[in-house]
């Protein structure tokens, strides 16, 4: 099969020893980032992105994606040992992971978590390997109207499937678009919303926003809970690993189900976080030991971890093939690709084969390497968290500031980062979702140019969006998603009224 041949070629790209070095460096950095609060997956990749500008795009994306992996693995460490989710998608892992640690079974919990993550990610990478070329070929038929339709669908599904008030989702999303629009308009060259400021001429960089919103905002939030990290110790020996591995095959259904849920949620812009919760919920309902979930069931760790990693990985699939990131971290990676002049989308597979397949090959090896690294270094990372917050907090803030500065060598960006930090703090507390904001900020310019190109082709006629079944179907789906909260409310009210009338119709005995 063509995909396999390309994959083998991709492995050849990895033969360059420097790339292997970058891989391990990336994974180690990633785990460190996943473990430290305030340096999350999206944030960490954002901070380290400018450092990779001096590398070749292939090496850079390999290192960045390995950082992504490492962060995925790292989030589980703090969840299990400290009951503090290092990443939003590790929250569900704390439900059963920490109780296991409290019962002295931390090593088992961690091994189960890492192995499940490996499994979920592996399934997703295989999916990417075989689906990506197909989707890319299919997407070659996409014109600007189709691209805009897909982007619309992405944004509308945030409104429809989100758990927050749709108005808040819309506000956050529009805010992201507005921020993206600041600066020089690429089509007409006009200045938008710069108000005569030279600093604003550059526009708002999504990296600064991500570091501020997810990094500084997270630290401010963590401060509310006080300054202590008290965690359980973790001893992972080879015996523990082996014993846990012997038990894991029992949960193969959970693992497969989690992977499927994860892959689905990663591809549609749900992301790793909802995937982990959904998988946990499903496992709890369908498992034999469902009631014991929450007290330290290994299955309760397997379920969310497979899903979260499958989602995190498969989020890269729409990013590579369509240019639509499935998660905030994928959005940052997308931004990175754009900075290097690589246009994600179907043409990437045609014009940059070596890059794309090198990346996909690195996912396989990165996954395995990640598992090995993380199993062997857990005690080390766990001890890092014992460093008191009063030492770590300023260091993290300094690192964030460095990250913000290195994007454009602009001092103004560090100030902007703090502003976004405050916004992130307030938004999170008021349940304004950050993911649509980041996505809108990254995709805003692309979405707008797709829209304008479509309008140019149709000479201003909006009917172009229903001109063929493909684009019409996608746009209609997008509209359904957008108005879903209203529809759902309506359906629920009808359901309630019907129940009432049937109850009234039953004659009293």
């Amino acid at each position: 099969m063509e995909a396999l041949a390309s994959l083998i070629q991709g492995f050849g790209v990895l033969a360059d020893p420097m790339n292997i070095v970058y891989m391990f460096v990336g994974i180690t950095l990633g785990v460190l980032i996943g473990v430290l609060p305030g340096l999350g997956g999206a944030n960490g990749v954002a901070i380290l992105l400018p450092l990779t500008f001096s590398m070749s795009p292939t090496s850079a994306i390999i290192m960045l994606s390995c950082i992504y992996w490492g962060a995925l693995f790292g989030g589980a460490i703090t969840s299990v040992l400290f009951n503090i989710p290092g990443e939003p998608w590790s929250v569900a892992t704390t439900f059963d992971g920490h109780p296991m640690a409290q019962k002295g079974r931390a090593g088992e919990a961690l091994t189960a978590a890492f192995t499940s993550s490996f499994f979920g990610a592996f399934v997703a990478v295989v999916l990417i390997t075989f689906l990506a070329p197909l989707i890319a070929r299919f997407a070659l038929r996409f014109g600007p109207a189709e691209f805009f339709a897909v982007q619309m669908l992405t944004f509308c599904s945030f409104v429809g499937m989100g758990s927050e008030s749709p108005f808040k989702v819309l506000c956050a999303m529009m805010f992201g678009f507005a921020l993206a629009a600041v600066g020089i308009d690429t089509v007409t060259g006009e200045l938008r919303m710069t108000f005569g400021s030279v600093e604003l001429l550059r526009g708002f960089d999504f990296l600064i926003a991500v570091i501020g919103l997810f990094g500084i905002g997270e630290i401010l939030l963590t401060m509310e809970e006080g300054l202590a990290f008290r965690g359980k110790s973790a001893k992972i020996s080879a015996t523990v690993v082996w014993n846990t591995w012997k038990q894991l095959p029992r949960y193969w259904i959970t693992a497969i189900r989690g992977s499927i849920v994860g892959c689905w949620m990663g591809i549609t812009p749900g992301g790793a976080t909802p995937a982990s919760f959904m998988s946990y919920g499903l496992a709890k309902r369908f498992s034999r030991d469902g009631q014991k979930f929450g007290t330290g069931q290994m299955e309760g760790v397997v379920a969310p971890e497979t899903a979260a990693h499958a989602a995190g990985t498969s989020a890269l699939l729409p990013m590579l093939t369509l240019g639509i990131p499935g998660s905030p971290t994928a959005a940052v990676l997308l931004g990175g690709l754009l900075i290097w002049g690589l246009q994600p989308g179907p043409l990437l597979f045609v014009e940059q084969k070596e890059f794309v397949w090198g990346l996909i090959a690195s996912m396989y090896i990165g996954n395995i390497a990640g598992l090995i690294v993380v199993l062997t270094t857990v005690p080390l990372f766990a001890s890092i968290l014992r460093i008191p917050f009063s030492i770590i907090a300023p260091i993290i803030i300094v690192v964030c500031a460095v990250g913000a500065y290195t994007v454009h060598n602009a001092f103004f960006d560090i100030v902007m980062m703090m502003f976004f930090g405050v916004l992130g703090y307030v938004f999170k507390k008021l349940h304004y979702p950050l993911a649509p904001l980041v996505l809108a900020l990254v995709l805003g310019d692309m979405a707008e140019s797709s829209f304008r190109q479509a309008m140019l082709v149709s000479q201003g006629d909006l009917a172009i969006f229903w001109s063929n079944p493909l684009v019409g179907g996608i746009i209609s789906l997008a509209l359904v998603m957008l108005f879903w909260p209203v529809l759902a409310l309506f359906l629920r009210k009808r359901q309630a009224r019907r129940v009432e009338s049937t109850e009234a119709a039953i004659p009293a005995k």
Partner: protein
Amino acid sequence: MEHETQSSEPVVTNRTMEIVAALFFATVAVIVMADSLRVGAGWAPDGPRAGYFPFYVGLVMLVSSLSTLGIAVFRRAGDKSTFVERDQFALVMQVFVPSMVFVVAVGFIGIYVAAMLFIAFFMHWVGKYPLRTILPVAVLVPAALFVAFEIWFLVPLPKGPLEAMLGY
């Protein structure tokens, strides 16, 4: 760390913050729409003008934020839940204020010296560490950053008078 202090009173209620946030978005929306109209939000002969897209973005934001405002004002009239408590807020300020001072300082004395002072200050004020513990950390971390960025990656960071004296 458990907080069972009496200063758990709210600094501000959720409802107030909801209103503030909604007003913030509404204001931003109006600014966006105003500027888009200035640039031109209609159709030029060759397609939508530069302000077309942002205008509608602003419009949606305005409608959404006003709706959130309405919900916050009317539906949540009896909601007294707390946005942040006094002692929580104090802790947040404990991090935020020194951070802002640090950021401003970067502009004057460069990031390395500012980082050293920031870390040292934080460790002393919050962590109450003795000087002999503070000194190595506060000096080594910026030093490591210096080596990493100025020498290895060759990525320049903001520098101040001290570095200028040393020839960087």
